[in-house]
């Protein structure tokens, strides 16, 4: 279930006077089990890149192969989209049905599954996103809270049982607690659901990237700067050169290190920095 992207380039309105080159010669591979973050300044082509993955954006030049499906020529869109689930930014704005159950069932229905299978999937998906199925199934999606709506929207994608889950800024517009809840949810989906093997997430929040991802692809003006592990990426100033901030933990650790309070400054989670400070305390 791997993704191979080779020399992918994309231009919006290639015929227009001011054509907009969104991607330039991007090559990237994603393996089973990866939790890949795609980061970059706004307008760097992240969304354009991920919409290629389930065929919403047609390949202009280059090559993409998703689990053996070649996206360059003709392909079975339904099959691809049931493999690659896409959660867009602010997915709660795309809810439409009268009840939560019907909305979540939209995807599976379109896949042409039978009623029984659909019901099982809907129930599983709603429970997987941490909601009470019996309580919520007959409610209108519009009477839910923002966080619940977002969960329902994610359930709508999960119900299609994708193997690759792609999320475009899943935590945008949430408060810190909401952000953490959604990220924990994504992590638990990846770890507990047998179906979701790979997660690809666009993020502007380096704290999330540092904490949850195992691989980071950095884009700048449509070009792939590189693919790193979070530890590699936040070691130096690469992200800052691309207009992004370092994770809070790394910034704090650098200050502390400069004052000689701790030894190590590439600390990616709060737990790590707490441990390091405790260790540093003993040294002092």
């Amino acid at each position: 279930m791997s993704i191979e992207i080779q020399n992918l380039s994309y231009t919006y309105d290639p015929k227009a006077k001011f054509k907009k080159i969104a991607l330039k010669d991007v090559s990237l591979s994603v393996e089973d089990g990866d939790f890949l973050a795609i980061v970059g300044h706004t307008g760097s082509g992240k969304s354009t890149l991920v919409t290629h993955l389930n065929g919403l954006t047609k390949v202009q030049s280059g090559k993409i192969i998703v689990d053996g499906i070649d996206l360059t020529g003709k392909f079975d869109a339904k099959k691809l989209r049931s493999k690659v689930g896409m959660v867009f930014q602010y997915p709660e704005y795309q809810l439409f049905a009268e009840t939560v159950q019907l909305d979540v069932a939209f995807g599976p229905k379109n896949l042409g599954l039978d009623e029984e299978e659909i019901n099982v999937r809907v129930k599983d998906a709603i429970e997987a996103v941490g909601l009470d199925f019996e309580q919520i199934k007959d409610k209108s999606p519009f009477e839910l809270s923002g966080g619940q709506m977002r969960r329902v929207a994610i359930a709508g994608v999960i119900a299609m049982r994708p193997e690759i889950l792609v999320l475009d800024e899943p935590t945008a517009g949430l408060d810190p607690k909401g952000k953490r809840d959604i990220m924990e949810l994504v992590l638990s989906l990846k770890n507990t659901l047998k179906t979701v093997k790979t997660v690809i997430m666009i993020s502007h929040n380096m704290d999330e990237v540092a904490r949850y991802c195992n691989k980071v692809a950095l884009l700048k003006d449509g070009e792939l700067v590189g693919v790193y592990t979070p530890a590699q990426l936040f070691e130096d100033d690469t992200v800052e050169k691309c207009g992004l901030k370092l994770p809070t933990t790394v910034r704090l650790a650098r200050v502390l290190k400069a004052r000689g309070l701790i030894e190590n400054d590439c600390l990616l989670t709060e737990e790590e920095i707490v441990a390091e400070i405790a260790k540093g305390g003993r040294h002092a």
Partner: protein
Amino acid sequence: MREISLGQYYPTGSLIHKLDPRTKLLITIAYIVMIFFIDTFVGFGLVFIGLMATVLISKIPVTKILKSLKAIIFLLVFTVLMTLLFYGGDKSEVVLSWWIFTFYKQQLIDCGLIACRLFFMVLGPTMLTFTTTPVQLTDGMQSLLKPLALIKVPVHLLAIIMSITLRFIPSLSEETDKIINAQKSRCADFESGNIFKRAKAMIPILIPLLTSSIRRAEELACAMDSRCFKDAKNRTRMNKLKFGWFDPVCLILFCALFFVVLWLKFNFLPFVDLTSLGWIV
């Protein structure tokens, strides 16, 4: 935000583009009225020269303009056919007789005049939209409608409603793209099935679109309210409308054209008698 071409504005930065939108609006309105006064080919010839000059100065490629006329070809053909088939006017001079059809001289002339009238009727406003952005048009309209404020028409509010509407169109179109993509990701099928099935397939797009426009409107209202927006009466603007030297030139030239057209129609000048020049009609 990405650019979305609204209408068919075609920027070249020419003198015509730089004209005050009020000038262009006034001329366009008067132009439409003028077209109705023309009933000779000489008149249309004059208008044609005027329009050609405008097109040349505006530097808009002629092909671009012709393309925008595609929409009226059907209307044009239809009207011409109608006049040819159901003609009830002067049948004195037969020009052509073929099978069950007979064409009269006056019939052909009428046909040509109607075609010209339609053609020019569309071309004028087309040039306006090619050279003026929607925002400029709203500003111009607001300025021209100002006198209506005297009879308590809330012109300033209408103007702000219009400019907000214009501002929202690109956002909503972007939103629509996003929603379509999101539902497509869930394997929504908009392309197959009969009309009813397709109409039903639009529901997952229309409902989110509706809720999101209501949400946006509400958010905007709150934002305006929280910045103490009361009414737009004393609103100042960043780009003030200003007449340049080319505005009076255009107005004068246009008035001259209008005068000639009226003269051709009503023959009111004492020293030249148009009826003596038979070829004009």
